């Protein structure tokens, strides 16, 4: 159990007006854990980032900036050396040293039961040179290492504190070095953070920050409208007008790194193994209409899932789409489905914004082109289960992000190895390009190869990218907040107007 509330105060103790120094944020459901390595959700990380510092951190534009590490250089193919900022202290007053970095990174790199392990398993060891200097040594050349340590689960843990108190105790009252200190966590209710006055970097403007767990969209909106919460995430499009029309808040949206896609099967025996059918599907779907009618324009049609700001971004495929019903029909005819085609598409419901509607609209569009679509809409857990067991038929809808901001992660899906358990797509050329890109440490080379892959893929369409979706926040009028591409809520960037 967490510490109890100081007074018998309710959790909705109104902030804003009378107490200008408390910021209340609601991202949706409660955070999962204070174990930064043992969760995989952005909403949890969005809170962690205020308590634990990364070695390197992206700014609001997505550029990687020095943070705990003030400088770094590559020593050889598998070694990077970092220098830590001096005088950084954990919330209990201990110094943050290279030992803490070693402890933290080696923990996640070696413990296979941790959910973030897969993102760090390229790290072989961390070598401490001196208290402020260390080297990260990877098993093989890892062009994504820098992205790796500037994203989710890259916070630095206090080694001494954890070793003294034990992990369980740490999870109950965690300390980090970040701009805010942990104060209290009432499960499924709220988390309280207080300002760290000794913070080494940019300090927050708020003395106290509350993260409230409000899983229901309309309730979050109601809380925003009644001034009980200052920032809410995931506002459904239907509520935008209500919020913008209100006299106390408005919508703040910005791009996310998430793209809606249709995965299509390419194995023998499925109609979609024929590239013409896949292209027909691509041409039958009006991506723009999806974005306009369902998201009120809150997204960008695309032919690739590598978005601006990511390594390997290919501009010609972004903000454009294929839509031509006649061409789709013709392609179908060429593929031998003159009299129509029947396919089944699966999709999650309630997982992504408007996922259910997107599917239904797609089905309607495909119908126009002569492709009759049986829908199989599933609640997320059933969806993952069936997806994992490869039980889906011709294809399914999913919206994936790319937290590395690196095409390497996104384009892996076109490689034979990865595709084997997804849609069976295999293309020798892509495989070769991937191999080259993934082992090269030269950003320019990698970008070129990735762009090449995207161009091939946009023709082959084993995956039909639909659109990149925005994030939608509701923000109280007195607050200046710009959504970050990585969807984190970094409080020092949240300002009073």
């Amino acid at each position, binding site marked *: 159990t967490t510490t109890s509330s100081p007074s*018998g105060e309710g959790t909705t103790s109104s902030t804003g007006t009378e107490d200008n120094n408390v910021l209340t944020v609601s991202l949706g459901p409660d955070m999962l854990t204070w174990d930064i390595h043992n969760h995989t959700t952005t909403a949890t990380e969005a809170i962690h980032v205020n308590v634990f510092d990364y070695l390197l951190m992206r700014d609001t534009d997505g550029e990687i900036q020095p943070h705990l590490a003030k400088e770094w250089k590559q020593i050889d193919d598998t070694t990077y050396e970092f220098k830590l900022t001096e005088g950084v202290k954990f919330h209990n007053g201990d110094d943050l040293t290279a030992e803490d970095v070693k402890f933290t990174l080696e923990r996640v790199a070696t413990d296979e039961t941790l959910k973030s392990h897969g993102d760090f398993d390229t790290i072989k060891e961390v070598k401490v040179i001196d208290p402020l200097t260390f080297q990260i040594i990877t098993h093989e050349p890892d062009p994504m290492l820098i992205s790796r340590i500037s994203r989710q689960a890259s916070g630095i843990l206090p080694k001494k504190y954890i070793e003294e108190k034990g992990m369980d105790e740490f999870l109950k009252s965690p300390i980090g070095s970040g701009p805010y200190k942990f104060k209290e966590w009432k499960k499924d209710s709220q988390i309280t953070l207080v300002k760290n006055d000794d913070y080494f970097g940019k300090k927050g403007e708020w003395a106290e920050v509350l993260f409230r767990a409000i899983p229901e969209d309309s309730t979050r909106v109601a809380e925003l409208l009644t001034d009980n919460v200052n920032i809410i995430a995931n506002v459904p499009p239907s509520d935008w007008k209500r919020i913008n029309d209100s006299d106390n808040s408005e919508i703040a949206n910005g791009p996310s790194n998430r793209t809606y896609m249709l995965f299509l099967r390419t194995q023998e025996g499925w109609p979609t193994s024929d590239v013409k059918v896949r292209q027909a599907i691509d041409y039958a779907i009006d991506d723009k209409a999806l974005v306009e009618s369902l998201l009120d324009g809150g997204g960008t049609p695309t032919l690739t899932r590598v978005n601006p700001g990511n390594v390997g971004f290919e501009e010609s495929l972004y903000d454009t789409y294929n839509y031509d019903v006649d061409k789709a029909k013709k392609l179908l005819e060429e593929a031998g489905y003159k009299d129509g085609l029947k396919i089944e598409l699966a999709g999650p419901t309630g997982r992504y914004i408007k996922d259910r509607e997107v599917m239904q609209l797609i089905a309607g569009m495909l119908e126009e082109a002569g492709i009759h679509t049986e829908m199989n809409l599933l609640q997320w*857990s059933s969806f993952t289960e069936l997806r994992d067991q490869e039980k889906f038929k011709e294809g399914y809808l999913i919206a994936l992000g790319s937290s590395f901001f690196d095409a390497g992660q996104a384009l892996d899906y076109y490689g034979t190895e990865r595709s084997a358990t997804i849609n069976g797509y295999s293309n020798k050329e892509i495989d070769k390009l991937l191999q080259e890109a993934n082992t090269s440490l030269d950003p320019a080379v990698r970008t070129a190869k990735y762009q090449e892959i995207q161009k091939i893929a946009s023709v082959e369409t084993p995956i039909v990218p639909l659109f990149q979706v925005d994030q939608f926040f509701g923000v109280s009028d007195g607050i200046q907040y710009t959504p970050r591409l990585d969807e984190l809520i970094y409080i020092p960037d949240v300002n009073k107007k």
Partner: protein
Amino acid sequence: MWRYFTSRLLQIPIVLLIISLMIFVLVYVAGDPVAMMLPAEATQKEIQTLRIALGFDQPFYIQFWNYITDLVRGDFGESYKYGVSAIGLVLERLPATLELATASMIMAIIIAVPLGIISALKPNGIIDLFATGLSALGKAIPNFWLGIMLILVFAVNLKMMPVSGTGSWKHIILPAITLGTAVSAEITRLVRSNMLEILQQDFIRTARSKGQKKSVIIFRHAFRNSLVPVITITILQMASLVGGSLITEMIFSWPGLGQLIIQAVYDKDLPIIQAAVFVTAVMILLLNLATDVLYRFLDPRIKYS
């Protein structure tokens, strides 16, 4: 009665064991949790690594054995998702759930009993028709609709009540109404139908022959006789609420068991499911035992052999 009571108490561990085994098999059949634990972008290799690390690649009987041995030691294990003691997570949310369940049952009874009785006194009268309509509405309105509407009206527009969360007594009113409505529909109808039946009995005539007041006849003679089914349904509804109620908890951000359990089921987070079911089962067993004992008070003719 003592013997009955103790024998029922002795059954509890056996039932719990059986329920636990049931849970294990059900969760096993439903699939392993690893796919849900990792993000959708995870590679097959990552999934496989975690699967092995957590032992989900083991054959059924080994997993089963591990589960049983832990169970017997009273160890529910750590939640796969939260990484902390499952039973702790469950117990933390229990008070909020009980609070809400109790409040909504009280709310339901306060509305339902008088309404049901009045309906029975004048069947097909104005109040009866009104109550019938209300019951139909109460059952047909989904919780989310009612909950959101209540928030809109009482919290957003009238600003009489807090929107969501816990803390003051005011926080519980809207969720309790939301949950209590459907229950009270059921109780109203049941009270009505039972009262109608009992008011026809000869002993009511006896009570009237004594010159007894109508209200006393209704409560002491008729209503008390109709209590067995009414209590049954009330406790039954209470029992289904001690497991939490997902939608209402979500809408009012009520930190109860419902969200935890349902999410755990989706995540196939066996330790939490197990711990939660264990805790709710104990309460349900006790509640139902209490009902059975209560039956004897309510109707002395009932015997347990």
